């Protein structure tokens, strides 16, 4: 008897232990973003200053059919049938897109940047093949969404979204078509409603404008983007928010604006950003100014510098002459006491990096496989504008916020790359430092993280003044992280922060004069 009771005991214990080991839930739950009623509808946004459009009526949109017309009534009947009852999948799509159209497309863009932020591997000849836009899914994939590429991609995306929404608000308040649920109270809506006119659909406008920009920026992702575009439009029907003609008009308007924005992108100098033939001249110029040891790639095999001519790409908020004026003063000579002091600080950290220093270095590293510092700051900006209990920005105000931040981030990238290639200053690794955060393959002075972060903090502090200290603390930490990560001297970081703040000020000046009164 005893034998069996013990067998039973062991069996039960084993079973309990196995269940504990194998079946405990390992799912990770995080709060989901949900839709909200904007704090303000921003009725006058149709008059706000645009970036690429000269005026909202640069793009055209025919007047909609009257809500009393048979055409509209037929659309309404169709809408009611499609929104009456939703499958689980449809409900999830409604909630996902309901969090904000600009918010979600910005998030999608960042996700793509992370997926494409992969430097090419060297081939058998010890060379690094250059990604080919005509063959985007070959190895290496096109694009290599490094920080300069990602900054520019996010800037064009945000500008297209913003300009398209200004035009949208113009036509919404020109035609004043009420939303379906205001026309017919029996329409079942799944998201918060407002009195914002529904023609054209702002969601369709954002979807089309974003789709066009992202398709050009990530040509290998067309099927993925097609699916997002279709789901976004469908979600507006399922949610009872837009009739079909609202969406058709939105797609048309979004496409028109995006075409103009991408025409500008083709002319901004990015196609020559990877002109490696210029680097020999840059090295000679830096040596001519007295630099005794220039930057050299520390990778095996040696990798050419990242986009050496990105510093010549057009800026958004100032001209090329201003860019040269914004360039920081020269870094200390390599035999100067200032340099020795900065290197000593790094040596101390190299010998005894604290866990907190490692944490900060890792938190802000945003290296390969991430959506880069520009993406990190766009996340901060989008979350600040989307906080359901605080800002609750309308789509157009969200787009304005992101466009101000994104254009400033691209300006920061261009200025910083101009500075880096102008001075061609060596990295601390050329003086014996290690690094756990990944060694960037371009010159040291000034720090890109510092420049990006200060530009973003300057703009965000102007838009959300109550959070000024928080944004600047983050920018300072991002800047410090590069010293803790041992890939920048302190002076790279202080010069980058100062330059970034000046760059951000141009976007702030624009924001004060864009007619928004914000």
């Amino acid at each position, binding site marked *: 008897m*005893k*034998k069996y009771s*013990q067998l039973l*005991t*062991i069996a039960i*214990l*084993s079973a*309990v*232990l*196995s269940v*504990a*080991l*194998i079946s*405990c839930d*390992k799912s*990770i*739950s*995080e*709060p*989901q*973003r949900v839709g909200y009623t904007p704090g303000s509808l921003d009725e006058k946004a149709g008059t706000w200053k645009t970036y690429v459009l000269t005026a909202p009526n640069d793009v055209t949109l025919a007047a909609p059919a009257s809500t009393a017309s048979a055409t509209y009534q037929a659309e309404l009947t169709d809408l009611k049938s499609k929104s009456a009852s939703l499958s689980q999948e449809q409900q999830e799509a409604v909630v996902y897109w309901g969090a904000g159209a600009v918010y979600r497309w910005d998030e999608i863009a*960042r*996700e793509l940047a*992370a*997926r494409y*932020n*992969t*430097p090419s591997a060297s081939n058998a000849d010890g060379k690094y093949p250059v990604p080919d836009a005509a063959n985007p899914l070959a190895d290496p994939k096109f694009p290599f969404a490094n920080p300069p590429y990602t900054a520019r991609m996010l800037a064009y995306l945000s500008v297209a979204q913003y300009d398209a929404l200004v035009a949208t608000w113009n036509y919404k308040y020109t035609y004043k078509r009420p939303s379906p649920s205001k026309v017919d109270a029996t329409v079942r809506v799944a998201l918060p409603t407002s009195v914002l006119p529904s023609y054209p659909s702002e969601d369709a406008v954002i979807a089309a404008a974003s789709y066009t920009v992202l398709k050009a920026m990530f040509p290998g992702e067309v099927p993925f983007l097609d699916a997002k575009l279709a789901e976004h439009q469908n979600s507006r029907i399922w949610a009872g928010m837009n009739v079909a003609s609202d969406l058709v008009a939105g797609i048309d308007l979004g496409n028109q604006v995006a075409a103009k924005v991408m025409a500008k992108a083709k002319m901004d100098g990015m196609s020559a950003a990877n002109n490696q033939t210029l680097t020999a001249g840059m090295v000679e110029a830096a040596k001519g100014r007295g630099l005794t040891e220039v930057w050299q790639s*520390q*990778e*095996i*095999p040696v990798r050419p510098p990242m986009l050496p001519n990105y510093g010549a790409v057009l800026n958004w908020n100032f001209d090329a002459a201003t860019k040269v004026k914004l360039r920081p003063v020269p870094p200390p000579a390599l035999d100067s006491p200032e340099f020795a002091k900065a290197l000593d600080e790094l040596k101390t950290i*190299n010998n005894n*990096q604290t*866990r907190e220093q*490692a*944490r900060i270095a*890792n*938190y*802000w*590293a*945003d*290296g*390969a*496989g*991430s*959506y880069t510092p520009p*993406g*990190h700051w766009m*996340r901060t900006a989008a979350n600040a504008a989307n906080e359901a209990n605080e800002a609750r920005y309308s789509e157009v105000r969200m787009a304005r916020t992101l466009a101000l931040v994104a254009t400033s981030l691209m300006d920061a990238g261009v200025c910083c790359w101009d500075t880096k290639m102008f001075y061609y200053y060596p990295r601390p*690794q050329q003086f014996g*430092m*290690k*690094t*756990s955060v990944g*060694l960037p393959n371009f010159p040291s002075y000034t720090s890109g993280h510092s420049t990006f972060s200060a530009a973003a903090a300057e703009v965000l502090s102007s838009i959300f003044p109550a959070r000024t200290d928080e944004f600047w603390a983050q920018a300072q930490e991002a800047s410090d992280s590069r010293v803790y990560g*041992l890939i920048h001297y302190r002076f790279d970081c202080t010069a980058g922060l100062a330059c970034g703040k000046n760059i951000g000020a141009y976007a702030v000046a624009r924001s004060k004069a864009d007619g928004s009164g914000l």
Partner: protein
Amino acid sequence: MLKGKGYFCVTSADFMRLLIYFTVALLFTFAHQTHAQGLAPGILDGFMKGQRKASLAIMASQETYNTYYINTTETKNPNLGTVTTQALTVVGTYGLGYDLDLIISAPYIRTEASAGYFPKQEGLQDVSGTLRWEAFDYKLGKTRLSWLFAAGYSMPMQEYVSDAMVRLGYGSKNLDGRTMLHYKAGPFFITGQYGYIRRGQVTLDHVVNNYDPSQLNPNSGMKVNVPDVTELIVRTGLVTKRASLDVWGQQQTPRTEGTNIGPGIPFPTNGVGFTRVGTTAWLKLFGKVGITATASTILSGRNTGKSTRVNGGLVLGL
């Protein structure tokens, strides 16, 4: 009630004690969500210590690789070179009862790469505590077959960086459950062991940008899952009162798919597996002092270094 080795010998007090141990282990699981390295075969074998007997082993090991597996593809990285990991591990074993041992181990680890710019990592890794229970002991003529269970818990002794190629460990808290069949005939023995290591979630230093939906919430937080693994170990050899020599094979398999090493992919979410073979020798020097040595190598793997390891140590009976 029977006492001593032989048939079923668990007293009700023993049983209550076991129940408490298992309950504590379970509570740990729920409270912490666990992770880890698994117990090296040298640490967990089928030989019971004996009531109120104890031993202390101090082991030094060196493990090197210049090739690692990205998924299952062998890769050499000129910007990494050869990675060398040295460890000093203290293992204490104490017989709580004639059928129940407590085994505690704590390693101090140093790891560095010969090329590139990865900094050296050094420090205390994961402390583990394991209860080994000999549930059954059959005498079959002059041979003996025993059936053992073990439950272990391990956790990092410090918050080391786990999301890096050159790192001390996984950074997770782990629960380890296993069962063993141990057969001994004269000097010959063979032990088969199957285990499941449940690895808890790890909080990274950064927000994950490039995620695998099965590993992370799309909202991209800092917390990630570490795939659980199963482990199969077979070990056979000869043992006398003066010396032992054995060979063993260990196969660790990720239970969930996990990710593969890649840019932006957190290292802890990678599915890690390997097949390792090794040999271990033990020699009694005098009195209660013995020495032990092990050599092992990885034959195939997934998202891990193709490493060779040697270790040697001093075993003191207390």
